[in-house]
């Protein structure tokens, strides 16, 4: 052991160089110094190796030892992950808390999910069964919401020669022996930088239902798809990510707090156990996994946190689950790359970011997908990445390169946020590339004309923005009533539909059928109002009608299980306009 250790010759922040590193492998995990700080080999030049260290390097000396762990940076995958909170290299924060108290000290060493805890295993195989990679040999009830399937790790197969009986076991117990010599335990390890294999990738088929009107109706995200949420500070990125983590219809949520605020992670930790999942009536924490590298935690671990998160997501996907990954924020990850690259004195590309930034982003987003798993199930990983562009300027490299690799782009707008229009998703700059792929699904599961109505309403919003240019110059009064009607309908849409109150009991999550009914009401009102204007009804009459107010408030007043409330509203609208039109036609 002594002979194979490297010796530190250079220290600069998280970057440490050591000599005598010939026998080390690229991307191998190592420990550095007396405190045994955890690091990863990121380059080897003959005898000289460069290590990025995942902990604070204060106190490292020249000639300190660099010791190999003989394995790449990996995560331990098994029961005990769900509902837990980890740091960037999968060390549970409560174990760190037990070891070092309120503040995170360096030199805690490697830690992972609790291997001494016992879990009740139900076996699905018997002696003589032939197992191949990805096959499920047992299950554990990890949380009331998540059944944890124990799988044969990739690249392993064989005939079962020995299997334990159903019962409680510790993680290290050998549960199944195969004739190939492989011993299967409750957990497996997987290097974070390598995507876990699947049988095949399938085309996008289903939306990720988020209960957020502006997303589900206007810019849907697909299961297995990718989305980016860019926005300057204060525009509500984190808020939007939290809403998605709370309400989207994924089976598992992996929330990566990458270089963000400590209090935000604490908020999730306090809130989620209290929030109740609408379908199962159980706390949402039962399906949530948190990875936290707050902005003051070591920067190298920030780089790793994204990979740790996505690898855990892939593992649960392999069990057949639909997993959604929220990465908040990918810009901090890119900045971590930049910081390390700078310390390595690499040649910088745009704005100091390394030239490999686009390829790293592509590698990350391409780990999303709708797939057939090794054991033949359909499952998905969806990635939703927040982007924090410097100065709120979307032309900076991280936003631009992210745009190349994601299909849904939900641009947050500072002006909307200033007027407290939340979610501040700008309907003109945002887009979703999934609409054509999902059209069929919407037709079969919501309504035939859902996508059509969406198009009509987009048209109204688009026309409004053009009209507003004119209004800015001459005022609203001079426009013809037909055009003023568009402005009013756009206001209905903005206040009554696009704005959604995350703190309102009913409004925080809205099912698709209610979204459709609301859209239908606005559309109906618009069509009838247009006819009324044609026969000479002044816009001021329509605008001051009590119906206008009722439509704006329908998101609050009509509950999610609306029963006949919409029929009532609809018939009131019809009656109002038929009376109105008769009155004016009579003139």
């Amino acid at each position: 052991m002594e002979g194979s250790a490297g010796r530190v010759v250079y220290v600069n922040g998280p970057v440490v160089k050591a000599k005598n590193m010939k026998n080390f492998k690229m991307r191998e995990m190592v420990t550095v110094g007396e405190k045994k700080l955890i690091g990863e080999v990121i380059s080897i030049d003959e005898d000289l190796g460069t290590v990025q260290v995942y902990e604070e390097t204060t106190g490292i000396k020249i000639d300190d030892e660099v010791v190999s762990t003989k394995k790449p940076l990996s995560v331990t995958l098994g029961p005990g992950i769900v509902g837990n909170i980890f740091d960037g290299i999968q060390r549970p924060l409560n174990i760190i808390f037990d070891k070092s108290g309120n503040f995170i000290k360096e030199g805690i060493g490697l830690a992972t999910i609790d291997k001494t805890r016992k879990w009740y295993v139900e076996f699905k195989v018997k002696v003589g069964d032939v197992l191949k990679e990805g096959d499920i040999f047992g299950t554990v009830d990890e949380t009331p919401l998540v059944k944890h399937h124990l799988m044969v790790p990739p690249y392993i197969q064989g005939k079962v020669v020995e299997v334990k009986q159903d019962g409680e076991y510790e993680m290290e117990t050998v549960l199944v022996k195969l004739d190939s010599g492989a011993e299967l335990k409750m957990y497996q390890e997987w290097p974070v930088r390598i995507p876990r294999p699947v049988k095949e990738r399938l085309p996008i088929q289903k939306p990720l239902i988020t209960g957020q009107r502006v997303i589900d109706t206007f810019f849907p995200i697909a299961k297995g798809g990718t989305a980016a949420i860019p926005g300057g500070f204060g525009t509500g990125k984190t808020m939007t990510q939290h809403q998605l983590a709370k309400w989207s219809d994924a089976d598992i949520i992996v929330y990566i707090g990458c270089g963000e605020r400590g209090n935000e992670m604490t908020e999730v930790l306090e809130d989620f156990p209290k929030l109740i999942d609408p379908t199962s009536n159980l706390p949402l924490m039962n399906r949530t996994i948190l990875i936290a590298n707050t902005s003051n935690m070591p920067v190298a671990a920030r780089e790793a946190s994204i990979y740790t998160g996505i690898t855990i997501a892939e593992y649960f996907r392999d069990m057949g689950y639909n997993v959604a990954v929220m990465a908040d924020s990918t810009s901090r990850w890119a900045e971590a790359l930049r910081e390390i690259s700078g310390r390595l004195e690499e040649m910088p590309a745009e704005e100091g970011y390394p030239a490999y930034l686009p390829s790293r982003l592509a590698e990350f987003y391409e780990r999303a997908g709708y797939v057939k798993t090794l054991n033949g199930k359909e499952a998905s990983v969806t990635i939703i990445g927040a982007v924090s562009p410097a100065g709120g300027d979307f032309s900076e490299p991280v936003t631009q390169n992210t745009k190349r690799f994601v299909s849904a782009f939900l641009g947050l707008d500072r002006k909307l946020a200033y007027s407290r229009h939340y979610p501040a998703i700008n309907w003109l700059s945002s887009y979703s590339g999934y609409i054509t792929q999902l059209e069929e699904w919407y037709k079969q599961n919501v309504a035939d004309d859902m996508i059509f109505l969406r198009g009509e309403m987009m048209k109204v919003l688009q026309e409004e923005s053009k009209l507003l240019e004119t209004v800015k110059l001459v005022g609203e009064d001079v426009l013809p009533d037909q055009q003023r009607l568009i402005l009013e309908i756009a206001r209905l849409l903005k206040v009554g539909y696009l704005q959604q109150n995350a703190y309102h009991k009913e409004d925080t999550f809205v099912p698709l059928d209610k979204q459709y009914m609301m859209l239908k009401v606005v559309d109906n009102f618009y069509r009838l109002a247009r006819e009324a204007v044609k026969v000479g009804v002044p816009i001021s009459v329509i605008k001051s009608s009590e119906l206008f107010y009722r439509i704006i408030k329908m998101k609050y007043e009509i509950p999610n299980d609306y029963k006949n409330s919409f029929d009532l509203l609809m018939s009131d609208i019809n009656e109002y306009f038929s009376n109105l039109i008769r009155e004016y036609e009579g003139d």
Partner: protein
Amino acid sequence: MHKEYMSLKKIEGPLIVIEGVEGVSYNEMVEIKVQGETKHGKVVQLNNDLAIVQVFENTSGMSVNNISVKFTGKSLEIKLSREILGRMFNGIGQPIDGGGPIFSGIKLDVNGSPINPVARRYPRNYIQTGISAIDTLTTLIRGQKLPIFSGNGLPHNQIAAQIVKQAKVAEGEGDFAVVFAAMGIKHDDAHYFIKTFQEAGVLDKVVMFMNLADDPVVERIVTPRCALTAAEYLAFYENMHILVIMTDITSYCEALREISAAREEVPGRKGYPGYLYSDLASLYERAGMVEGSKGSITQIPILTMPNDDITHPIPDLTGYITEGQIVLSREIYQRNIYPPINILPSLSRLMKDGIGEGYTREDHPDVANQLFSSYSRVQEVKALSQVIGEDELSEIDKKYLEFGEAFEYRFLRQEFNENRDINRSLEIAWDILSILPKNELDRINPKFLDAFYRG
């Protein structure tokens, strides 16, 4: 172990390079004796037998062979006890008020360690500052970091002083103290704060760390860290509620840039180092509350936006880390309104959990929302009236102008000595909202409209 080195290889700006060192560790403190005077420094890079040391005081008078360098084996630590209250220190934590050194107590590393998110307590208790715009629209929460984004010549110091004077952080719940970190501010600004603390009668509850504009630049890097370490000691060891005022973050960032340039690092935006975000986070994230301690650290950093530009890297990166911001506007100030807070870009991220029923008043969230929304409409109407003239505006738009005027002169504007409680602020808010017709108030629950709308 503590070998002395008698010669240098190189001196460049604030950096010195020592050759042939052994057993030196990264980030450790260094004592440098130059002609009888002791200076301090920190190891910032190790490369084989070379150590690069950043000197806190200036390097003038040093030559490659008139000095002796001793490595201490420790990072910078300061001595802390309850006695620090009422004392004044320089930028690296040495007493400068003639009161002698701090005895007893414990020694803490000024770099601190990140708070484990699991150990944090989520901030929920609001602090009444007595300033309507802040209490109603960007509520300050105990344990929050809420910076003031200002510009040169704007009254950010007055606002900070007014908050210190009026903030009811203490009442009935443990001790209250102020930690004040001055980084590169002018002597008269420093005097202004001392005078205010005196007038408010809190001087014996204030700990000051002073690095003024003409003090060494490198020392400025350590100043906020000393201050925050003192704050952590008082909050988490002595269970006090601490308000930390750090001014001016812009000078701090410039000091960082100066050193980064001297070290020939690859620059990021506008020449600031690529790690500016992480570095600022290591200061701001030291606000908060932790399990097992009754104390709290609330931060009000003040920064002057260069050229009043909110997209400049300093305010930009700050805004990404802090829990909101209070933005001052030159235009509003020129209209003779104090405090000149531009509420539209201002924000408090934690207020959502600390206002409303059980905290302030049940109608507070809706009222705040409506004020933001209506005041933002006022801006559109103003822009329009500049083009077509006020007379041509529609009736409703004229109402908005009237509302905007009332908002600025009745709600926003208040005297330096005027202390409005939250009920008073909300009442004024309802007074001015009632200028608008009821159906324009679409952010307010009808229940509250019925209860509070005037007329």
